[in-house]
């Protein structure tokens, strides 16, 4: 066979039937996801550059952003919501996640009994809707019903009780703590699963070296579950920066008292959908949604590129 024949043979494409089934398998998910999620998201980003001029949607460049950051009324509300959201997030990171990790560590104690019961009970609040959680806590913290003052009187702190949800300072902390109470099950479950996946041999080797109890947790287990802690941190971040429901059910769309519990989600809702006398503003709603998108994107990118890359993963 000459060289020419060889090249000719190679040039003939291998006849392969089009694998239609791949397209059929992918199509439904791709279509629904693109049409309901991705395209509206892009459309929302686009809308933030448009506004009604004489009733006609017109491209206005960055002027919506100038209003949001420049107009005193808008920028005051925006920075207030962002600051509250940061406090909301900080409280989740400092209270919910450490307690969740501690509970998971306690649950993974070897040969502990009633584990399934504890796990289900602690996870229960996570299953409840915000409406239930919000209302139950409003009742408990209500001075009229008197459950919280009575409980505090048991430990001799009745004088410290105040109607926290109605005071502009403590309201945000109270709402954050209620949210912590509700969601503590998620870090607990994820960390618990991570702790269980640590192989027996590693723990046994540590025990042979005399590392047990607390020091075993700090020196052996904690480094091994760091990736899981990274995941719960970013989940908390994303969840907190589009939170809305709990504030809405406890404090209403106005996020009272005096907007002290206003976070980006409630701010977006009020702006976009309107409330009471204020009319909904689609363009400004899209602008706020875009800013929230950028905040979340920044957080997720920071996690993916700065934290997750550097995290050491151990292969067993």
């Amino acid at each position, binding site marked *: 066979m000459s060289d020419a024949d060889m090249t000719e043979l190679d040039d003939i494409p291998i006849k392969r039937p089009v694998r239609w089934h791949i397209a059929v*398998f992918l199509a*439904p998910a791709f279509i629904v996801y693109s049409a309901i999620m991705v395209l509206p998201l892009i459309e929302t980003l686009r809308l933030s550059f448009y506004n009604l001029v004489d009733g006609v949607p017109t491209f206005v460049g960055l002027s919506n952003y100038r209003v949001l950051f420049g107009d005193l009324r808008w920028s005051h509300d925006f920075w207030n919501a962002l600051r509250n959201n940061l406090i909301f997030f900080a409280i989740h990171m400092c209270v919910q996640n450490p307690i969740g990790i501690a509970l998971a560590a306690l649950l993974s104690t070897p040969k502990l009994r009633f584990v399934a019961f504890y796990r289900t009970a602690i996870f229960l609040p996570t299953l409840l*809707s915000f409406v*239930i959680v919000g209302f*139950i806590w409003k009742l408990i913290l209500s001075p009229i019903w008197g459950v919280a003052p009575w409980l505090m009187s048991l430990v001799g702190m009745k004088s410290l009780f105040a109607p926290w949800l109605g005071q502009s300072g403590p309201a945000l902390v109270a709402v954050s703590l209620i949210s912590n109470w509700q969601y*503590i099950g998620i870090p607990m479950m994820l960390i618990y699963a991570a702790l269980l996946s640590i192989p027996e041999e590693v723990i046994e080797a540590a025990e042979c070296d005399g590392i047990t109890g607390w020091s075993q947790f700090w020196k052996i287990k904690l480094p091994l579950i760091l990736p899981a802690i990274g995941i719960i941190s970013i989940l908390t971040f994303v969840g907190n920066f589009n939170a809305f429901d709990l504030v809405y059910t406890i404090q209403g769309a106005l996020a009272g008292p005096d907007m002290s519990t206003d976070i980006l989600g409630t701010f977006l809702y009020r702006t976009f959908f309107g409330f009471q006398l204020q009319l909904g503003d689609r363009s400004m709603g899209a602008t706020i*949604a875009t800013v929230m*998108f950028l905040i979340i994107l920044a957080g997720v990118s920071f996690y993916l590129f700065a934290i997750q890359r550097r995290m050491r993963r151990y292969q067993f």
Partner: protein
Amino acid sequence: MSNRARMSPVRTGFVHLALAAYTLIALFPVFLTVINSFKDRNAIFRSPLQVPLPSTFSLIGYKTVLGQADFLNYFQNSFVVTIASIVLVLLFGAMAAFALSEYRFRGNALMGLYMAIGIMIPIRLGTVAILQGMVETGLVNTLTALILVYTAQGIPLAIFILSEFMRGVSDDLKNAGRIDGLSEYAIFFRLVLPLVRPAMATVAVFTMIPIWNDLWFPLILAPSEATKTVTLGSQIFIGQFVTNWNAVLAALSLAILPILVLYVIFARQLIPASRQER
């Protein structure tokens, strides 16, 4: 396991004490709601912490709630939306996960990445345009709108979890099926799907909770009387009956029940059998 250092009973005691204390915090508010929903009005106010006694027992709250025909309708809407969305998420998610994990084709990695974006970016941010689209297609105030949104919301995580599991299904099995002349569709539906059932249960739980409890989309896309979900319905019910505590507490207790039942059904699959239970 036998050579494990034994925990001293004192330490075990402290572990139980700490866990029990937190369990109490987690359960107390729920317990408080449920016991008070069975009491008459005076007893709710006079002694909120007392369990219902024969003298204070009353079902008046439940009668008020169930007397409102709407409430049963809300439950029905929630069930329709949640179950339809879970079915679609599982079906579409599993099909896409199979395509991505089984076949090598151009753009595979890109497609996987595209689908993964939705895990991190919340669908709520697109609400402005979603509402606009639903208005244009006439889907506002229909359950279809909610089902579509929740399906889109659930698909990314479903694909992520299910494709991990599908990579673990033995190639020999699938190839044996191919030699026997099964089509790719039959391989997916008859061989692979039954094998990833535990993963499907996990996806079902993670998809179900946010859908059942969501307030945002029902409030914006389907607030009409006929399409209210139980979450939105009870939010409005609380607003109207704010002074009728019997009714509110009964409504809340009823709203806890279905999600609890669904959770108990799936719970065994959520976490692999732990060391203790093995």
